[in-house]
């Protein structure tokens, strides 16, 4: 079903690991079985650590924006604060309201979190550094992210609270409206790289370093994608589903303890995931601003040399994470800078502005691809 890391020249952890185990006298099937959970666990841990970093950044940057100091006693510069937050949520009493629908109430947060984590399946950190190079790549992410509104509607409905129901309905309306321009801007990228696979999309952007990144060829698509990704993550200019002043906390109102933590985790994992995907689709993914091949050539080393491969592999991970966190920084800065839009403004922006612009962007990309096949991936 899932094919793990296609064999290509270059760093391939899977085949090395399998060879090592088979060298120790284990059968091939058993070695494969031992390998299977490793990338998944690594990515899961990476996602959770990413969330912790994100929470810390949010607290520190918001403090800086408002000229406060922010957390500073838990660890150096307050780096342990997110851990303390998480532990607090873990020890809180798990409450299910008396008139709520217990089953749906429990299932809601799970349905919100699981698709987001599953989407990490297609995020590449290097040529072979992803869980699965599935052919449908970004399409899988779009499909999975469309499951989330069901979880939101479920928790909004089952809480038996009018604020929750309104929040759930708003969340569903919002994610349906912004999914379409999002998918259309992804489609323009897919058209340029002739593939849905995230690895192929990044490979299409290598060659001339920073100049070959998609952001120069798809500036409008980049903006549309980023706006829609923020709306899908319910970040502040678009955080109507949980608007404190109107809806208390939207669909999260009745939640506490670990179930609330699942929503919290889900929204932050989603933010990191969106930032990672922006960096993959528009900012060249794991590629360095200057092509690594040139650098290796400059110091007289072959790209195939083992040490160079390890260095370029680590550089790739660092670049992906760096780009993603730069975008997260912008998202946090946006959150503490701009006011919230009204629901009618939100839907107007989605349907009357972003959707037509995304369609025109797609058509122009198609025309440019026909006119200049060399520059726009013929």
């Amino acid at each position, binding site marked *: 079903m899932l094919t793990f890391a296609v064999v290509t020249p270059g760093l391939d952890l899977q085949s090395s690991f399998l060879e090592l185990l088979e060298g120790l006298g284990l059968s091939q*099937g058993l070695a494969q079985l031992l390998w299977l959970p490793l990338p998944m666990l690594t990515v899961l841990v990476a996602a959770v650590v990413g969330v912790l970093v994100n929470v810390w950044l949010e607290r520190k940057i918001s403090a800086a924006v408002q000229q406060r100091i922010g957390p500073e006693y838990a660890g150096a510069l307050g780096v342990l604060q997110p851990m303390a937050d998480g532990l607090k949520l873990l020890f809180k009493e798990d409450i299910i309201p008396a008139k709520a629908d217990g089953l749906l109430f429990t299932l809601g947060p799970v349905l919100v979190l699981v698709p987001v984590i599953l989407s990490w399946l297609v995020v590449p950190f290097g040529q072979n550094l992803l869980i699965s190079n599935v052919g*449908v790549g970004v399409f899988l992410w779009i499909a999975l992210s469309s499951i989330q509104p*069901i979880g939101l509607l479920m928790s909004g409905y089952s809480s038996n609270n009018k604020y929750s129901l309104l929040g759930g309905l708003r969340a569903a309306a919002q994610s349906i409206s912004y999914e379409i321009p999002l998918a259309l801007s992804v489609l323009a990228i897919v058209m340029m790289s002739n593939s849905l696979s995230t690895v192929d999309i990044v490979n299409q952007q290598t060659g001339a370093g920073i100049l070959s990144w998609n952001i120069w060829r798809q500036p409008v698509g980049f903006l549309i994608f980023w706006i829609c990704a923020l709306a899908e993550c319910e970040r502040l200019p678009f955080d109507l589903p949980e608007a404190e002043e109107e809806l208390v906390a939207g669909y999260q109102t009745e939640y506490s303890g670990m179930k609330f933590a699942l929503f919290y985790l889900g929204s932050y994992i989603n933010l990191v995931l969106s930032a990672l995907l922006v960096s993959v689709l528009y900012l060249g993914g794991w590629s360095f601003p200057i092509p690594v091949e040139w650098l290796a050539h400059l110091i007289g080393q072959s790209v195939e040399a083992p040490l160079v491969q390890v260095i370029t592999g680590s550089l790739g991970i660092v670049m992906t994470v760096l780009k993603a966190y730069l975008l997260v920084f912008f998202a946090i800065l946006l959150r503490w800078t701009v006011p919230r839009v009204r629901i009618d403004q939100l839907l107007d922006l989605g349907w009357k502005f972003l959707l037509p612009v995304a369609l025109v962007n797609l058509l122009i990309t198609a025309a440019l691809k026909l006119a200049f096949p060399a520059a726009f991936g013929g």
Partner: protein
Amino acid sequence: MTIASTTELICFLVLSTTLVLGSLGVVLLPNIVYSAFLLGGVFLSVAGLYLLLNASFVAAAQVLVYVGAVNVLILFAIMLVNKKETLAAIPGLALRRLLSAAVCLGLFGLLLRVAFTTNWALPGPLPVGEEATVRIGEHLFSDYLLPFELASVLLLMAMIGAIVLARRDVFSSDVITGEPVDQGLIEKARTPLLLEQRALEKTP
């Protein structure tokens, strides 16, 4: 039996069980909200079956269209009009249920007969795997172009119909009943409520 085929068998059994039980729940549960959520589960397990058949593009499309769009819209509609009202009892409910059960069982028997009498080619055609996306695209733009375009025309008609129905204010009379529409209800005055109250208080 290898690990891969065991996993496949377990996945198939789990997916089929959720599919059958879920669909029974959709039809038989009295609570319409539960039915709608179960419908989502049914669509998801169908997508899982597609994935088992190596049709990952179809699986993703199934999730996007049926779970992400159709089911969310159904839920949306249910939650917007979820009024607690006691429906009037239908006469002869037991007889109606018996009749519909008989019809359903008949259809099920017919399908079973087809499934058992057809000479299925085993093993089926080789799955194309990742290449399927390209294959589907080629078909949609060559021999399936007309059905594809007809489907989009149908969607356009549905969209225009929905807009006409939703924007009643463009008509002077109601489309269905023929009564004149009270335009005042649709075009509300924009003065905030409190201002009006204050104005009323000032002019006793």
